[in-house]
């Protein structure tokens, strides 16, 4: 791999990694507050895709289409919590996991019935496909946009969590939910907020993902979210900074495996990156950056 190729791949890695990072962050945020793994998280990406499809049919410009996609995921996330998760909030980890699994199946089934099993194309602006020549290095516009939007979202979110009062409430709830409630943090509000932010993150990641794949089908959200699950595990479940780093790490791993594996092994790129992750977890069962630890 030549140096210029390396730089190109690095930008690709950052771009894919930032999508994973956004999703892993959204998952970790809900895990932090509720101790729940939201299996239906991928469906938010799918909902983003279909909202974009509808907005496109309505003839809106791409910027509006993208905004609608993001908002749809945010709203759906809050609704999902209200309708499906709130009634059983105090149930065990396993019950919550199963419920979210069922919700995922419901949403997938709904799109299958209402639209089609087949993929539908979503047009994206043509300049996404272009590349910029920087000296010897050619970098695709989409990669730069993706990495840029990813970085901006992450910084904005970090600032919100660190600086705002709601952010403080969320951090408190995430470190000890019971105590935080005793201190006057309103549980329902914090949880709704966590789902809203987590949904918006899925929406942003969804728009970026759709811009890469330029189509949507009922299982669109599945692949990126599996990767995000794995990323949050590498980062240490519930550890927000770990989730971001885990996402970037997994994206980099996947891009470089795609670039380096011989053609016959290419179908195994995702599986290989998972294998490497399992190997890492063998050495460090708590993830690379440490999970929240239960105290005695």
């Amino acid at each position, binding site marked *: 791999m030549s140096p210029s190729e390396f730089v190109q791949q690095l930008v690709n890695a950052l771009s894919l990694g930032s999508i994973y990072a956004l999703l892993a962050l959204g998952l970790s945020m809900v895990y932090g507050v509720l101790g729940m793994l939201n299996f239906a998280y991928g469906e938010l990406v799918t909902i983003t895709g279909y909202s974009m499809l509808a907005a496109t049919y309505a003839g809106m410009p791409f910027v509006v289409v993208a905004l609608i996609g993001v908002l749809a995921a945010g709203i759906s996330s809050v609704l999902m919590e209200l309708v499906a998760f709130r009634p059983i909030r105090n149930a065990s980890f396993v019950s919550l996991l199963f*419920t979210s*699994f*069922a919700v995922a*199946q419901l949403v997938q089934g709904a799109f299958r019935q209402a639209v089609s099993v087949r993929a539908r194309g979503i047009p994206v602006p043509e300049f996404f496909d272009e590349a910029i020549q920087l000296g010897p290095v050619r970098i695709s516009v989409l990669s730069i946009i993706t990495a840029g939007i990813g970085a901006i979202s992450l910084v904005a979110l970090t600032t919100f969590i660190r600086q705002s009062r709601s952010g403080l409430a969320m951090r408190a709830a995430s470190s000890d939910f019971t105590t935080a409630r005793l201190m006057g943090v309103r549980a329902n509000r914090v949880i709704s907020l966590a789902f809203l932010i987590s949904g918006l993150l899925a929406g942003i990641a969804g728009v970026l993902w759709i811009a890469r794949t330029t189509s949507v089908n009922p299982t669109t959200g599945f692949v990126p979210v*599996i990767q995000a699950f794995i990323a949050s595990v590498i980062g240490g479940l519930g550890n927000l900074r770990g989730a971001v780093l885990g996402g970037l790490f997994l994206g980099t791993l996947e891009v470089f495996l795609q670039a380096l594996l011989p053609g016959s092994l290419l179908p*195994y790129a995702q599986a290989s990156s*998972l*294998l490497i992750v399992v190997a890492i*977890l063998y050495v460090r069962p708590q993830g690379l950056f440490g*999970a929240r630890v239960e105290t005695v």
Partner: protein
Amino acid sequence: MIPRNRLRPALFGCALISLLLFAGMLLVRTYGSTSSSRTYVVFLVNVMLVVSLQTFIGNSGIVSFGHVAFMGIGAYMTALVTILSTVKAAQLPDLPSVLGNANLGLVPAIVVSALAALIVAAVFGGAIIRMTESTMAMATLALLVMVHTFFQNATTYTRGAVGLAGIPVRTTIEAATLAAMLFLLISRLYKESGPGLRLRATREDPLSAASVGTHVVRTRYGVWLLSAAMMGAAGSLWAQSVIAFNANQFYFSITFALLAMLVVGGRTSLTGAVAGAAIVTFLTDTLARVEQGVAIGPWELPKITGTVQFVIAFLIIITLILRPEGIFDRWEIDDLVRRLGPLARRARRADLVEAEAVAAAAPVRGPDALGSAASVLRGVQVAKHFEGVRALAGVDIDVRPGEILGLIGPNGSGKTTLLNVISGVYAPSEGHIVFRDQEIIGKEPHQVAGLGLARTFQSIRLFAQLTVRENVEAALPPGTNAGRVDGVLSWFGLEAAEGEKAVNLPYGMQRRLEIARAVVRRPSLILLDEPAAGMNEAESDELLENIQRIRSSLDCSVVVVDHDLRLIMKLCDRIQVLDQGRTIALGLPREIAEDPAVIAAYLGGPSKKSA
């Protein structure tokens, strides 16, 4: 292996379900159509699959999305060794000749398939099983994705999405019935066996399971292997019932269906697993018919697809809201029958008589069993820092044989930290601890427990959903006479409540049960962390007698941490006082009560209580 009081109902329960399965088979064979008999085989195969999965999830409490991978491995293995050589050559021309020429019968094919699944499980399990519960769920998901990718792309062996065809149909309705019965029996025997009980204890509370000597990771690894092998065998029987299949059948839709069966029926109950399999199978079958278009009188319903997924998803959500632990909750069919009939009451009485005889005959260890009169436990300059906080700043501790040592000090003085370091929960930052002539620094809690140390916890940590008797049995060292359990139960006045779940006991009994669980191990040292917390004077007097009796009849040493000074002064031979992570006094109760440093640091001035 399995005590009779658990074996008998287990066999009875298995026999009941087997009888139902058998009766169903006879009915279907005599009166049913070809299609209903096919549905019944599908149901029986689902029973095998879900029982295998239940063996893992139900007993360990860990969700696995990965077991369908083992089913797939079993199915492919079976296809490769059973399809006729000529048919195989046409589908898979590049197959190695060992497999190309293989032509095995029903049972050998099942064995080979189970072995293949076992090997893959052994390799990946080594990594997966060490993780924490929620991480493990994700790792099993990764396993499913990896294995599925392999099925899709290793076309030399699998023909990917095209699939393999021509597997001989050997899973007849009779074979399937028999196999389903066997799966149930194996799973139930495992559940009631020593390893099964200890695994269920780790499900309730991994730390306290370790503190009674259970190697959590090894116990989980055992069930991982067992359930994977069962899943492989079930996959083999599945393959021999479907003729043809492809890579995409071992992915999310079947995982979803199996988890749905567990959720609906009750994931901690085998009876529930079977009920869940019945409900989901017959629902799926009915919906599949409806989807073909049904005529109701003159009206014809339109053809629709994908209803199965919807209905099952709704079923899961509704079950979780109305009955979070599933229809059967944690009950097995024999539990339900026992509640109705007098059958087991009689059995239990017989067991008690037998057990009392065993307990009476059990040797009580003599005072010389400990050997030398040297310390049971000796800690030198033990220190523990938590990110800058010095919880222990170098403490010496010395516990003599047969001694009751009181450990007191203000909140935050390091008492509980010291107990946690001694029992292996925390590794100390500095210092040495020797317990019964062995260095225990670096040992895990279950290893320290294995050396003869038992403990209780400040906040009670029982195996909440296990019965009183099971709580004590889970702590019993493997290979010891189960009669000891009865002795301990009656000692602590728990025999009347032995069938009750620990979570339902009143507070005082929970405290006693926690001590009983420690005592049944016949330890040489017991650490009691605030055993008198929340007790009134009468209860704490009873506790005092119990602790003295533990010392005299087990000849063991006791370390007691408590804030109840009246109890500590009356009970202890010596008292060690900690403050801010250091020992500030050590001596006889009388000396401690008069020590000015103790009075200043702990009692905050002359106290009436200490007089």
